[in-house]
């Protein structure tokens, strides 16, 4: 008769042998075949080949195959990159294959790995022991490894980008210039200065991939790739973006990406900051006023172009006025322009630019008004002002001539909203009369009193003015909901 326990003995033997086999395999894999150990054995061979002098032999003798790390508590970094990049600070390793090669440039002379680590500049997962995990472009790590050319974005952590040699940070310098040239400040705030249509960019570089919508982005799903795609075509990653295509080359998109990635208020101990960074922080508190032209270029041009023509904006669904057009600046008073700039135009995309809103200094607003008015000519004499207007006749004139563009009650449509409170307070009678009479050259507003065929007489204009002055009262009696326009600005990104 067969022993009934026999089958259990076989079972135990097979199971135990499998377990031993698995454990031995795991031990070999972990202790001998680990990627970093293979790399270090390769490096040891390289050291052996290069041990031709005393120091080479000393380095070879001192080399141990073990995990190496730069742990810098002040920066919150535990970087084991040097476990595989063994030759990073060995000047003899320029001719060997990665990962053994010397760090390019002379950056490590002033930024030794022992003091700065690696991830403070390169990002990525410092504690990783394989390259795939160090790169960390999956969903589990907030700041994946930056592509080498974008690493310069991190210099700004401790340096003032304007004081660094431009040949060391070519993309960052280009991005900084492009940000001003493309007038990004018209919609985005940086350091408290800029428009309010888009999100402020002060801490854009600190954004993790979880703060950006990656659904329509081609992999890799990293923040830098998102920014790159966004600069090529904002609508491709943010479907309802108000941002216009910045019309940039691939390299310019890269430069802008590096620039926004550099916007990161990182908390770094003061001992790491370069002196110019501290000066930069001081300068940010005490800004030097820009000239009117600079202000216009950096904070107005994105919407108003060069300001001499009126433009239909598809995304805003309205005309953007020609604010340097000769017919506006020769009629508008300084106070009118100042009120519109400081307080914005409620109901339109024009934000307020006063010191507590867009962050422009009073002297900068004065400067930009001067710049806008540089094409102004002396206004002709007025006769309408002495007449008394009839608002009821004005209403019928308004409905016939104006409401088509400016909307019923002046709520705006194709034309600007002339019933808004800032306009009503700031626009002088003279300004309104002149605009009706002469129209707005370079915009859709026609002249209603051309010499050859006047559509409105002086009395008509006086009536119209009287009606326009009653607009606020009528609006004041209506529920507030009517003041809300359908094209209210929403953030550039959800």
């Amino acid at each position, binding site marked *: 008769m067969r022993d009934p326990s026999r089958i259990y003995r076989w079972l135990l033997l097979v199971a135990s042998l499998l377990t031993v086999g698995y454990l031995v395999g795991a031990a070999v894999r972990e202790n001998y075949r680990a990627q970093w150990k293979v790399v270090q054995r390769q490096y040891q061979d390289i050291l052996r080949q290069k041990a031709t002098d005393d120091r080479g032999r000393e380095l070879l003798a001192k080399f141990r195959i073990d995990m190496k790390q730069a*742990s810098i508590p002040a920066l919150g970094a535990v970087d084991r990159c040097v476990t595989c990049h063994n030759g990073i*600070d060995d000047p*003899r390793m320029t001719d060997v294959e990665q990962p053994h090669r010397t760090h390019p440039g002379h950056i490590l002379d002033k930024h030794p790995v*022992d003091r700065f680590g690696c991830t403070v500049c390169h990002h990525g997962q410092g504690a990783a022991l394989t390259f795939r995990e160090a790169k960390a472009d999956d969903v589990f790590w907030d700041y994946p490894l930056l592509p080498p050319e974008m690493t310069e974005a991190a210099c700004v952590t401790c340096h003032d980008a304007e004081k660094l040699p431009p040949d060391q940070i070519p993309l960052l310098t280009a991005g900084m210039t492009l940000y001003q040239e493309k007038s990004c400040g018209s919609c985005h705030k940086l350091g408290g200065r800029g428009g309010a249509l888009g999100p402020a960019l002060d801490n854009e570089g600190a954004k993790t991939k979880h703060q950006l919508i990656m659904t329509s982005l081609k992999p890799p799903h990293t923040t830098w790739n998102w920014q790159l795609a966004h600069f090529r075509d904002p609508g491709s990653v943010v479907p309802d973006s108000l941002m216009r295509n910045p019309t940039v080359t691939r390299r310019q998109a890269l430069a802008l990406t590096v620039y926004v990635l550099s916007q990161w208020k990182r908390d770094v101990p003061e001992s790491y900051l370069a002196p110019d960074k501290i000066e930069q922080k001081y300068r940010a508190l005490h800004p030097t006023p820009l000239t009117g032209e600079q202000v216009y270029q950096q904070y107005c041009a994105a919407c108003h172009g060069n300001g001499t023509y009126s433009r239909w904006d598809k995304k805003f669904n309205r005309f953007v006025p020609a604010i340097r057009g000769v017919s506006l600046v020769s009629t508008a008073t300084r106070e009118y322009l100042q009120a519109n700039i400081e307080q914005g135009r409620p109901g339109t995309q024009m934000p307020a630019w006063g010191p507590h809103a867009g962050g422009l200094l009073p002297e900068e607003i004065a400067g930009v008004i001067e710049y806008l008015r540089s094409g102004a000519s002396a206004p002709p004499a007025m006769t309408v002002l002495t007449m008394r207007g009839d608002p009821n006749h004005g209403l019928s004139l308004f409905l016939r001539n104006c409401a088509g563009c400016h909307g019923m009650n002046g709520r705006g449509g194709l034309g600007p909203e002339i019933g808004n409170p800032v306009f009503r307070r700031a626009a002088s009678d003279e300004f309104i009369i002149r605009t009706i009479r002469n129209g707005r050259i370079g915009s859709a507003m026609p002249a209603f009193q051309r010499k050859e065929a006047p559509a409105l007489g002086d009395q008509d204009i006086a009536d119209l003015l009287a009606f326009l002055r009653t607009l606020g009262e009528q609006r004041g009696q209506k529920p507030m909901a009517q003041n809300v326009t359908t094209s209210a600005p929403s953030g550039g990104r959800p």
Partner: protein
Amino acid sequence: MSRLDPPRINRRSFLSLASLGSFFAALGTAAAGIFRLPNPAVLPGPVRRFKLGPPEQFSAGSETAFGEQNLVLFRDDDGFYAISSTCTHLGCTVARSKDGFACPCHGSRFDSKGSVIGGPAPRPLPWLEVSRAANGDLVVNADNEVPEGTRYRV
């Protein structure tokens, strides 16, 4: 088969021995792996290998204090040596005195080679390992102590 038979390895007892043997082998291997776990491969402490710059910048007979790294680097005719300036009593930073080092906290005194000549310090100030990095800079490894009198020749 009775118990009085002389023991001989037959097929069945071989099977029993092999299965038990492999079981204990598996247990032993697993235990070896488990007992390795409490010893981490790398401790998350800060790096204590300090690069102090090229050796040419220290002249013979000089001594240079590195406050941040808490060590004093000496160069005499025989070579370089580094002495820790952390008091072995309670870890205050010792100051250089006329005849060696003096601790401001509890009055321990050391001679210029780090040996205790007074006060509560239980051990002499450790001598630290000096070597050179690949780029030629002097490196002091504050984690490695060397016997007193060890010099590093450049």
